[in-house]
């Protein structure tokens, strides 16, 4: 924990950078109370201030999430090109609603505002990977591939 904190000056302005790094380092893709408390102490503000800041931003999660985070773009350009159907197809494919994690802990399904790849709408991100021109068929093969890659390590 110290190592992450000390990458940045002990100053309120470092808070978002610190939270990003903590979350990236967490196998469950979230910010635990312990790290929030450590961050609060390090930058010199109260825990509630840190909580209020962390919950403001959609990229931060206070609850444990799956191994992979799927973010489906729900901005108007993607909706126009069938994004709403993609979200419901993905939802039934994984058996979870947006915001939920699959039972095996592999995927958390989320929605996001514009990903800025509107030329290939509808689009989504799995972790840092972008996927565009989505169709229900492509979704199935993408998810199958991610699962396969996980299984083979």
């Amino acid at each position, binding site marked *: 924990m110290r190592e992450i904190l000390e990458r940045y000056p002990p100053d309120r*302005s470092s808070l978002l950078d610190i939270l990003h790094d903590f979350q990236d380092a967490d196998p469950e893709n979230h910010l635990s109370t312990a790290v929030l408390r450590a961050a609060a102490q390090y930058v010199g503000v109260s825990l509630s201030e840190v909580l209020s800041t962390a919950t403001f931003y959609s*990229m931060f999660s206070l609850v444990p999430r799956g191994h992979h985070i799927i973010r489906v773009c729900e901005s108007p*350009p993607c909706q126009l090109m069938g994004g709403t159907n993609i979200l419901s197809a993905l939802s039934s494919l994984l058996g979870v609603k947006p915001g939920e994690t699959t039972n095996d802990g592999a995927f958390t399904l989320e929605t996001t505002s514009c990903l800025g790849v*509107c*030329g290939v709408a509808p689009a989504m991100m799995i972790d840092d990977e972008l996927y565009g021109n989505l169709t229900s068929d492509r979704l199935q093969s993408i998810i199958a591939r991610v699962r396969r890659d996980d299984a083979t390590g």
Partner: protein
Amino acid sequence: MQLARAHVLVEINDESLLAGAEKVLAALEKAVESHGLAGEVRIVETGDLGASGTGVILAVHPDGVIYAGVTVEDVDEIVEEHLLKGRFVERLRAPTSPPLATGLVRDQARIVLENCGRIDPESLEEAIAGGAYEALATIAEQSLRPEDVLKTVKSSGLRGRGGAGFPTGLKWSFTASGEEKYIVCNADEGEPGTFKDRLILEGDPHRLIEGMILAGYAVGAGQGYIYIRGEYALSIRRIQIAIDQARGAGLLGPDILGTGFGFDIDVKKGAGAYVCGEETALIESMEGKRGNPRLKPPYPGAVGLWDKPTVVNNVETLANVPPIIARGADWFRTFGTPSCPGTKVYTILGHAANPGLIEVEMGTTLRSIVFDYGGGLKNGKSFKAALIGGAAGAFVGIDGLDVKMDFDNLKEYAAVLGSGAILVMDETVSIVKVLQGILHFFRHESCGQCAPCRLGTAQMCEIADRIASGTGSDKDVDLLREIAEVMRETSLCPLGQSPILPIETALDRFGDEFVTGSAGAGAASTAK
């Protein structure tokens, strides 16, 4: 730089990566090597070449041939035929009518994007060969004073490209005096349908750095920050590389080019909040707080980052500054319209046949953008409407196709240039459904700080849901407009003041779709 007989530019951005650009690049490097061309042919990773949705794109110079939809299997043929034998691979050449080769790239007036797609964005040498830091050298050579730079920017008539169109020179001149000042580049591009800033960041990062140095010099700021969306991983990487290169070359740091002026830049990463595109929310976020907008005035020019005078400019605005200083205000004024000189970068998306990024002169009509550059509509469908300027933008119908697009003309037509996103919609689209999507977006992105926006966006969603499901009443339509009007008058920041525009333009221009209780409401499918 080693001289090469030919350059092959490979477009590397998020979209081409999706299409397998990395594999094509690797195959190309291998094929060039195995054909013994390594010393003669230089392969360059580059930013946007001006068309998206057409797969992996390569440009071969000096021939100026563009290949689209290139796969790993095509690579050997391109190397053997074109690079070895000099015969173009016709089957892969980008189509010559409207899109790439003749239209999309060649007819554009490129100022901001002039080097995007021509240089390796990770090479300082190539950026300099393309004219980067020329303006800075001009200042050093001619001993231009900060007030000279400010005067040139003022007389160029450059207006902010982030959406509002406020004169840039004037904004700079409003910066209060003080020991410590900051230049902040707003790269929190979140307006739905907008990705122009990302492609500038990825394609020509040194242009932005130079623009920020010039801004710093003009207003007397010694430190700059670039606030980038957390989702823009490649942009963050590229700009950081460019900053390190500029530092290494003495273009950032104390005493730049012997001028005695010192300036440095750091990157700040956002964490997912649309409202942080608003300048005071962005400043709050940079300070490590919730992105709640501040009450204005005071404006950032007086009380900004850490309460110091701060200039906040959009990426595209700052990218316009170096050529203005290097080539002069009069040169800049030869582009565009008298009240809005220069060019505008647009993203064309939705049902356009050729979605992508273009830069054209201010005053270009929507018709030309959609039909000449965008190639008309997909699948032979007809044009119904365009949403200009993102979610906070305006619906424009067929009667608006010939409006000359600049800040002032669009205002007269009750529309805005906004972020430059142009969402093209064909005849099958339900305006009700699109508006419903926009209102849900605003509800999600409202920061919740002020009541009119927090409550208003929620109310509007409920109403839009009723109308879209066919259970709304005429009263609902009136109420929608009324709430939006109240929000415009009473909300703290532009987010809450924005929904009136899409609502009003949807109701005024496509009112017959909002006839409630009939099959008309939301009847047309938004899906393909």
